């Protein structure tokens, strides 16, 4: 039996809406007939620390987390966080990164520099890189807090989920008055 499980790794910083985004991806995948498992970490780590969520799908998924060197897509919500997870990526993996920079404490204190060459470093190992400004697109959509929906829009291009299903899932995922702006954010991400 060949293992056909695919993995999307979402990474970023506490407060960026990563767990919410991974929930929405999982629901869309389940609605499309896949078995789905996802991991997340709560508690202490959420206070401004690194946050990751593995979303795994296929015919039958066992582990909710992937091993190093096996992830298909990295969806990084913060620029430098991209680097932290490159060793999880499989050869030829797709890297999607948000250009937003959130300074870790050592950078805030002037003790370390924010890495300047995130995209160049990533390019040394992976060719397939899409760098976008999700925050700007969210602003364009009409609400800066929809950056995570922009990111869902971007990654939606590479998932076996129909536009009709995305529409239904997004419709259910948000309170009525926020549906339109999130739909716009999704569209902007999808065509970014």
């Amino acid at each position, binding site marked *: 039996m060949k293992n056909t499980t695919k993995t999307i790794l979402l990474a970023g910083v*506490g407060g960026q809406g990563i767990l919410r985004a991974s929930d929405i991806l999982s629901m869309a995948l389940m609605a499309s007939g896949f078995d789905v498992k996802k991991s997340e970490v*709560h508690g*202490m780590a959420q206070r401004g*620390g690194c946050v990751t969520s593995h979303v795994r799908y296929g015919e039958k998924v066992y582990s909710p987390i992937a091993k190093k*060197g*096996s992830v298909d897509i990295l969806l990084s919500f913060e620029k430098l966080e991209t680097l932290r997870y490159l060793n999880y990526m499989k050869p030829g993996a797709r890297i999607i990164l948000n250009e937003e920079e959130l300074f870790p404490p050592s950078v*805030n204190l002037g003790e370390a520099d924010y890495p300047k060459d995130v995209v160049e470093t990533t390019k040394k190992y992976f060719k397939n890189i899409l760098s976008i400004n999700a925050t700007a697109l969210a602003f364009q959509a009409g609400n800066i807090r929809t950056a995570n929906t922009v990111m869902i829009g971007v990654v939606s291009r590479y998932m076996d989920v129909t536009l009709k299903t995305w529409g239904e899932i997004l419709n259910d995922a948000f309170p009525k008055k926020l549906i339109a702006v999130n739909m716009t954010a999704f569209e902007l991400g999808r065509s970014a």
Partner: protein
Amino acid sequence: MKIIMSGNEAIARGAYECGATFASGYPGTPSTEILEEFAKYEGVYAEWSPNEKVGLEVAIGAAMAGARAMAVMKHVGVNVAADPLFTASYTGTNGALVIITADDPSLHSSQNEQDNRNYAKFAKIPMLEPSDSEEARIFIKKAFEISETFDTPVFLRTTTRVSHSKSIVEPEEPVKPEKRVVERLDPSKYVMVPFNARNRRIVVEERTKKLQKYAETFSENRLEWNDRKAGIITAGMTYNYAKDVFPAYSYLKLGMVHPLPEGLIREFARGVRKLYVVEELDPFIEEHIRAMGIKVVGKSVFPYTNEFDPGVVEESIKGRPVRSVGPQNLNIPPRPPNLCPGCPHRGLFYVLGKMKVFVTGDIGCYTLSFMKPLEGLHSCICMGASIGTAHGISKALREKGKGKVVGVLGDSTFIHSGITSLLNTAYNKSDVVIIIADNSTTAMTGMQHHPGTGTTLQGNMTATLDFEILAKGLGIESIRIIDPYDLKNTRSVMKEELSRPGPSLVISRAPCVLLLSKTTLRKKTFRIDEEKCTGCKACLGLGCPPISWHRFPEGSERTVPGKTKKQEGMATIDSAFCTGCTLCQQLCGFKAIVESGEVS
């Protein structure tokens, strides 16, 4: 219908489906959501108890009265509840009692990495261990059935990955179990004086024998015959890790990790050429199999510490690292968790960090202030330990310790296990200053109510604990209230209290920023006046996330405002995250921190 649920949500669902009507416990990652979710179902009673010991005792009582009751806690919570646990094993349950222990391999949110499977053996109580959400939903029901059938408390153990991973669940309609009522409890079974307890000891051993037999045919102890070259015995989440990388091997998947099915294990061991045990933390199953005289590979190749993942299982069995093309040793600035912008703990610990005192700390969000730049807390052992350790230090140092020892703990932690130790400081007279960092919530675990908030888990208004009256009653003579956003006053009250003899209590009172609505928060935010900032870095001492330091580029001619000295850089404040707490403004000696205007 299929839905995606976390392991914790699925446990709550399963308990509801099988007619559990009662649950109690105390919050603790990764267990917290079980009780929060269960509390929402119709017709159930659920409570946050002040601590796990009370939580378990309450559930024991509910089971005695015939209910299907559940006590929920994180792994270290079982330490707190251990006293009633060991004897409830003797009395049995009458109704059903399931104790949920949520373990935390890798210490994602814990102070230790204990393996609570040992408690099952130690207390002679069966333990089930699900591997995903659907199993969690089913296993909790089995746990209730086993409890009723064998008149025993039953453990359900999860780990962080089971509790917090999400997978597909197919919920069922709830059923009502037949009601068990009690007319009168048999004293020889429930009054554990030596005479009765000796007899119950024998019942417990007989019960274990019956459970061993039951384990042999228990539906969730499952043989999966496949390639017989290698066989893996495993339970819980590690089953998934192993299946992910070695789908072709044979498996004995254990749904019950205590007592173990020796017959099944022997049959499986005979059927495979090489036998592995894949288990995180202690060699719990492995030691048992070895004691049976069976050759097995376990901790000789697998790590003792941290949670596994499919890669760890593959590396351990294959004996070489998994392939990864990504960079291995990039120098990436770490991103540890931090106090939120506007957190009331920041001002208090800024002051403590600058004083020449030893601060015994405790567990909660405020523990994070041990880090740079605050460095305002110097020890942390377990919930409630701050007061006892402060008292011990002060007594051991005698005269030398006068005015030098402070103990700090949060409001929820104080209620959990600080009250008796505060009483001890009064009773045995120590020269410590105890601070309750009272933010009106249990913030670390996600804002749960407690007896000091005046609201229950199910949202009912109730009595509110008054810390001042309580402390007076315990015999504390000096009690002060401070506002931690006022740095000057905080400092002077601390100095005064440290210079008095005898224990005193300081209540540092301001609600958690996450409790404040957007309208009360952020009436104003701050920015740096670039003309005035000298780059002195005083504001950076707060470690506030929106404040950062920027070095001027090479060749910059800028001099410190009003001076001829060259200026190296300056601070900035990201107004988007500033809450307007004013701490940085109080620290700035150059009036360089100014309001950035009304925020809509």
